[in-house]
């Protein structure tokens, strides 16, 4: 008997006429690791909530079809009993913690189940130990880092000892290290402790290989479910970006085997190229959007000279930072949490004043309240797009910024709405939009002044792969027009694909700065999956397009290996998913 059985499930959120889920039928076995992926609004989080019993109980709305859990219809199950069987961890760690102390938070669910004190003590102790939360057991939850908060959220669900763990994009708000930690715990829970795991995720390069089955959703429907390799092939065939780069690379080759990890990918690539391995450093064409202007002739837009900064009573956050960013550059700043990246951005826009050193924007030193002098020229997008949204309509949100700067040309509003594909939403309340759409509205609200300097703090956080690509191309176009783009991100794949220059920070210092191939190509840990795949085989390759370009001719020489049993010949770019995202 399957653990979950879903029959013809259709669901409408209250007040909507478009179904969030359409005629879903699905079975999930006990102990399975199911990965659910798809774009924003594809219905994956809604499906997770149905399986957790939150829809329609918490959300209301209209529901059709049936969902069975261990043979019984889920809606007939007592809520307490269901909570003992099915636990759910949500996307934002900040929005699921109730108590102010770590230990109390872990016990919260147990108190709700009415367990006796001895049982609670035992379970809390076990979970604290398993999740390695002892050092923060007595800590205030408000003082934990994002990663620790998500670990705590997971711990408080695990303490209830559910049979099934449903995770709704548990790593989307976390830095790579914290994300890895959460995924390792989930892997252990599935492999060593037999938990059934249903994970909704978009950071596929880290979890695709963990899944026994991948479920690809679009428009409220399941468009493919099967093994990771099958999922990759189908996504590539449909031109969808929801495939990790390594799998996409081989799926595009029509390879009979689609590897899902770098290790498998390298083995396969080496077997294809046996005896013909080109351990070369090819002359990868470097895209330069301002090739008509020589580097040294470009104007310096931001220049930091020996900048030091420390928060009052805190440690030094920035240590002797010197950086010169020129017009038309697209710079990605990478580094671990606490490396000082966001503080550096605040120094650049004049929100913070360095303790020592000087900051120049367009050659003029930024003084006290310096942001007032440069803000008309600067667009700054913080990590949380919701901080920007409070007007009645999307259009009003843009007009608000225009009014504040005394700008009247509505042509800018039209242009930016068009370029960010926001025209259909101009009369909608921004708070009614999806997270990806909100992100674009927030971006539009700061770009409407036509700034020459665009500074974005973690713009790809929680954004699906399709929208990420739209954003990346938009920023590349802006840089090509001569605007300066600076992006702080944890997303190495994004930086490798779209940025021109990469700055790496560690503990308040700049440890690497240069053209992206020079910085990321040499890094083992901060390099994209394609670069890891090609290391030692074809060095210097960072992106999917470069891999196609460099390895294509080599692989074309080995047609036999790349011909599927169907006799179909490998042709690059035959499916939409084979174009760079």
């Amino acid at each position, binding site marked *: 008997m399957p653990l979950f059985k879903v029959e013809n499930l259709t669901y409408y959120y209250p007040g909507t006429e478009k179904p969030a889920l359409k005629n879903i039928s699905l079975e999930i076995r006990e102990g399975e690791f199911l990965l659910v992926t798809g774009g924003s609004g594809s219905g994956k989080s809604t499906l997770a909530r149905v399986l957790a019993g939150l829809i329609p109980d918490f959300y209301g709305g209209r529901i059709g079809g049936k969902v069975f859990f261990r043979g019984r219809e889920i809606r007939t199950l007592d809520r307490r009993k269901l909570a003992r069987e099915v636990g759910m961890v949500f996307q934002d760690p900040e929005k699921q913690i109730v*108590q*102010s102390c770590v230990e109390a938070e872990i016990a919260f669910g147990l108190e709700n*189940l*009415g367990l006796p004190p001895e049982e609670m003590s035992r379970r809390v102790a076990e979970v604290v130990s398993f999740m390695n939360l002892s050092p923060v057991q007595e800590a205030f939850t408000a003082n934990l880092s994002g990663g620790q908060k998500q670990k705590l959220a997971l711990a*408080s669900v695990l303490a209830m000892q559910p049979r099934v763990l449903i995770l709704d994009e548990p790593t989307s708000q976390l830095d790579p290290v914290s994300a890895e930690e959460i995924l390792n715990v989930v892997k252990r829970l599935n492999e060593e402790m037999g938990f059934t795991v249903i994970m909704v995720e978009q950071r596929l390069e880290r979890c695709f290989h963990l899944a026994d089955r991948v479920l690809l959703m679009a428009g409220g429907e399941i468009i493919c479910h099967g093994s990771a390799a099958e999922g990759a092939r189908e996504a590539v065939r449909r031109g969808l970006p929801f495939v990790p780069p390594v799998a996409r690379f081989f799926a595009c080759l029509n390879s009979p085997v689609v590897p899902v990890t770098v290790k498998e990918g390298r083995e396969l690539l080496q077997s294809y190229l046996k005896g013909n391995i080109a351990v070369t450093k090819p002359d990868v064409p470097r895209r330069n959007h301002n090739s008509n202007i020589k580097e040294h002739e470009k104007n310096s837009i931001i220049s930091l000279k020996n900048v030091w900064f420390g928060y009052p009573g805190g440690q030094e956050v920035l240590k002797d930072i010197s950086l010169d960013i020129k017009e038309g550059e697209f710079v990605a700043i990478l580094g671990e949490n606490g490396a000082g990246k966001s503080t550096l951005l605040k120094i650049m826009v004049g*929100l913070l004043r360095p303790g020592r050193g000087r900051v120049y924007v367009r050659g003029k030193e930024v003084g006290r309240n310096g942001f007032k002098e440069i803000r008309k020229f600067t667009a700054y997008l913080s990590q949380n797009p919701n*901080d920007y949204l409070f007007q009645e309509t999307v259009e009003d949100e843009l007009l*608000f910024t225009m009014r504040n700067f005394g700008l009247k040309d509505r042509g800018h509003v039209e242009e930016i709405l068009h370029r960010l594909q926001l025209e259909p939403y101009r009369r909608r309340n921004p708070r009614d939009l999806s997270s990806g759409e909100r992100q674009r509205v927030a971006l539009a*609200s700061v770009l409407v002044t036509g700034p020459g300097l665009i500074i974005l703090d973690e713009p790809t956080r929680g954004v699906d792969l399709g929208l990420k690509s739209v954003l990346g191309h938009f920023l590349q176009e802006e840089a090509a027009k001569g605007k300066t783009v600076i992006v702080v991100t944890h997303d190495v794949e994004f930086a490798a694909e779209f940025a021109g220059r990469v700055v790496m920070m560690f503990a308040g210092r700049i440890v690497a700065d240069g053209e992206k191939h020079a910085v990321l190509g040499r890094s083992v840990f901060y390099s994209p999956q394609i670069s890891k795949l090609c290391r030692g085989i074809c060095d210097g390759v960072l992106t999917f397009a470069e891999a196609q370009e460099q390895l294509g001719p080599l692989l074309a020489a080995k047609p036999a290996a790349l011909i599927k049993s169907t006799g179909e010949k490998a042709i690059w770019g035959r499916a939409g998913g084979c174009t760079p995202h």
Partner: protein
Amino acid sequence: MFDRLFYREKGLFLQSFHPATVLVYLLVLLILSLIYDHPLYLLALFLLLALLIREVDGLDAWEGFLKAGVFLMLVVMMVNPLVIRAGKTIIWHGPAVPFLGKLDISMEAVYFGAASSLRLLVIISIFCLYNLMINPDKILNLFSRVAGKSVLVMSLATRLFPTMVRDLQRIREVQQLRGVDFDTGNLWQRAKKYSGLYNVLLLSSLEGAMEIAESMQARAFGSGRRSVYSRNILRPRDLFCLGGSLLALSAAVWGLRYGYGRYTFYPEADFLIKDGATLAVLFIVLFYLSVPLILSKGWKHCRFLKSKI
């Protein structure tokens, strides 16, 4: 910026008491600060509190609390001599003022103002010590058996307050870069600018509230009768401290029956130290109240005591 005013777990001895013990102890201090008039007794309580605050590594936080109290203290000290006419020793003959009459300032009124201000500082220091000694979550936990839902609401508020302070700062920065000048314009214009700021905070908080509620529902909140997870442990140190508090209160009440701890300000101020018994009673009360301080010192320096408490 506000972090230092709130409880921070530092692993200190004074933070290891049972919350009920701390509540009783601080309540006794509060009662004594309210029933004592004698400036010397109030001063002794103030000094004891200063030592306790130092012991709990909270001089920074205390400074913050005192800054807030000093304004009130100055108001009391200035207004009291101006409006009280009961003092006999006039130190300054002022002009006649409508409604208030002749502004004669007496030495006794100044004394009374100073003693009242001292009482105010003592009370503020008690609240400061409360913030430094007790994890608010443990206090809430203490009451969750009797008022579970109210306690949960308070716990959520405690958790969300620092988050909201941070959010507000971030939203302000974002709006400043979108061209909003919070420090320019008349009162109405500024109010309008701030309303936008709070509007964002409110909208985001409401959305956050829905997500928190969903997470609570997913963890079976409201599915039936709850039990209470208690993390509070009663140790010998709590018994010593409770004993000390009750003995101090008893000694103080006994002393007050005989006038020790009372002080006459008007018409003529009493002697500060009338007799030896005034000091003896003060010493006894202070000794009992010093039990947590003595235990804390013993914990640090006496291995035997450390193993027993």
